[in-house]
């Protein structure tokens, strides 16, 4: 009982300290728009995923984040990648209407309009080291490497490690640790 009380007291002190520092803002972070956050996630993926050397463009060719289908980001993606670079490759955004259009691309966001044809898309991307990302899939669909799942008012990550490994991509523990990892489904 004594231990519990001292632990609780410590937590109350901690809470009071946070309080005095005006950290009410920490308790309930300021909301931002959903696609702004998703755009920043894509930016983060560029830094926390390792591509095999063969999949990266030469020299100072751009590192491409592609959007397949009807773009839900508005200007958010452009805003995020402006003047940014990854390992000397400037970041660029590309919009595709079909998988056939994809040339140099490292990250591909599959939009809601295309997710219905997911199986065909993933098959076409099979031997390329492209990190596939999408919003939460319908139950029964899988194969996308990172799902941006909306849980109440937060965006969480659901990572399919198997799919990433199959594409020869290594995902940093910085992304894996806070994410939900999904395993193979039969």
């Amino acid at each position, binding site marked *: 009982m004594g231990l519990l009380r001292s632990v609780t007291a410590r937590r109350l002190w901690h809470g009071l300290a946070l309080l005095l520092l*005006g950290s009410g803002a920490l*308790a309930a972070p300021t*909301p931002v728009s*959903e696609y702004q956050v998703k755009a920043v996630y894509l930016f983060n993926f560029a830094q926390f995923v390792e591509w095999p050397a063969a999949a990266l463009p030469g020299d100072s060719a751009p590192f491409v984040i592609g959007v397949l289908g009807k773009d839900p980001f508005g200007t958010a993606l452009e805003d995020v990648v402006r003047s940014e670079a990854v390992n000397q490759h400037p970041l660029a955004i590309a919009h595709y209407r079909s998988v056939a259009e994809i040339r140099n691309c490292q990250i591909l966001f599959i939009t809601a309009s295309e997710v219905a044809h997911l199986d065909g898309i993933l098959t076409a991307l099979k031997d390329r080291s492209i990190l596939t990302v999408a919003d939460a899939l319908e139950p029964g669909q899988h194969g996308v490497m990172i799902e941006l799942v909306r849980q109440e008012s937060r965006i969480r990550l659901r990572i399919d490690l198997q799919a990433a490994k199959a594409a020869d991509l290594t995902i940093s523990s910085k992304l894996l640790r806070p994410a939900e990892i999904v395993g193979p489904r039969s």
Partner: protein
Amino acid sequence: MYLGHPARSSARRWQASLICLMLTLFVGQPAVGAGDTIASTGDLKRLSVEELMNLEVTSVTKEPQKLLQAAAAIYVITRDQILRSGARSVPDMLRLAPNLQVAQITSSTFAVSARGFNGTAASKLLVLIDGRSVYTPYHSGVSWDVQDVLPEDVERIEVISGPGATLWGANAVNGVINIVTRKSSDTQGPMVDAGAGNLEQRGSVQYGGQLGAAVHYRAYADSFHYGHNLTADGMNAQDDWRKTQGGFRMDWAPPGDLITLQGDFYGGSETKSPPPDQSASGQNLVARWNHDLGRDSGLQVQAYVDHLLFSLPGIATDELYTYDLDVQHSFYIGKRQNIVWGGGYRLQYDDFPTVLSATQLLTFIPKDRKLALGNIFVQDTVAIMPTVKLILGIKAEDEPYTGWQELPNARLSWGLSDEQMVWAAVSRAVRAASRLDRDLYEILGPLVVIRGGDFQPEKLTAYELGYRAQTTTDTSVSVSTFYNVYDALRTAEYSPGGQLPAMFANLMEGETYGVEAWGTYQVRDWWRLDAGASWLRKNLRFKPGSAQIAGTAIAGDDPSYQASLSSTMFFARQGLFYLGLRQVGSLPDPASPAYTGLDARLAWDLSPSLQVSLQGQNLIHSQHLEFGTAVAPLQLGATGVETGRSVFGRVTWGY
């Protein structure tokens, strides 16, 4: 606590939180310079992945994708809407839904319904708070004076007009209100909210914390005094009331599970004229287990205990114990079919002793009764084509007094495009008999005026059609129409031969039809408009053999139309101005004229965790009637008491 500005966060706020991170976590963060006016995207890029995952994201609805597919007329009142409008009581929060009719009767009583049949004993609405049903079995209605949720703790309120899907069961005839509170992990830290005005004084405190990594909790206490409403000639209606409530919620989230324990207790009293005053107290405890079974299937088990005590000393007491257990299992067959099935059992002990006197003639016989309600249900959702979903469901319910009822429903949703869908539904719903329908006696000396009869459940077959479009995250429109065929509606009839005693029977039937529409429009990134309107036509008639006592008006008192418009504006990075206008049509019987209500609220963030605000309600008329004059039949509860203008100043600290 925040203003919730969707597109512009104050650089100062980011600076404050980054400084705090430095001090408490000793992690080096690049400080945002004082002169920086970096777009929020720049600030976001500096966050770690953990911080990104904890960011709150704004949207009109909880899950735009899912809402777009719901084959029902569902309006979601978001937490944002509640906080911005300043609504504190549950009826005030419900006024934000354009598909509900909310009418204030006295300071503490309200008539709330959807699609007609409104009255204090409005019986056709199912109301749940975190899965706990809050209707009172003695009249199948809801005592709004004992249901309180802190606005900061509301995650969302789902308002479905129309028969709830088979999952919800009895009394979900005209609608379902589902109040969902936030998980404890979303209400961490301290919060104090206090305010006073010409009509109301209120204060609440809450603290949320953590016991280890996976257990979060919160505890709160809330107290208010709500002043009197006014009689038609502006005098004190002697109906002020006060209540104190406290409670807690604890969530434990080991991987794959969510176990929640929550409870509340409250006590309050309402001045009545003539005395005595009525007091109410209650306690409840809810335990819930959500288990992830893998492969997108899940199990939910919920049990709760609820105790409620109303007391009018010297006249009557109502003590109600409720014990409820519900189980629900959801799983997928292949990629296109989702089955949800389950069942539940509810046991209620209602004890309603009455002291009969010259002025108090009504009583329940027997004074105490045990009511048992059992149900099993199954619902199958099939994606018969990628854009077409068919939902077939059936629930069988064993009701107190009358036994088994079958409640089938069929729904179809068709996605016209990513942003638009149409839906159609046919359902059967039933309003179970209550103690009022079966056990009520009115005794005048040796004469029995009313006696408990053989009341059967009221029936509804509903045909609905709707269209919904969500063009961007913040702009949407929804239109629903319905055609309801009612049978076995409650009437009061004489004993054979036209003799007393009278009793409740089921000799009314009819049709109602109408349209409900609402939309939101983001005019600028700092200005949003919400609009809603509903129309209702009723065509009710007595069946042959009915004594037609009190006319078809006894079914409910409803306006033929209702419209609302609200505007939310953000300014100067710290300010919020909210304006809410509503126009409610006249009520036929008991009569009350159409009225216009205007609410306004001005709020200012003195700091990220301190907000002051001033709000006014019903600003146009010095007083107005919402629900009809005092001469009214028993079930409707009208008193002729009017609602006055009110202003309220408030300080909120914390989140």
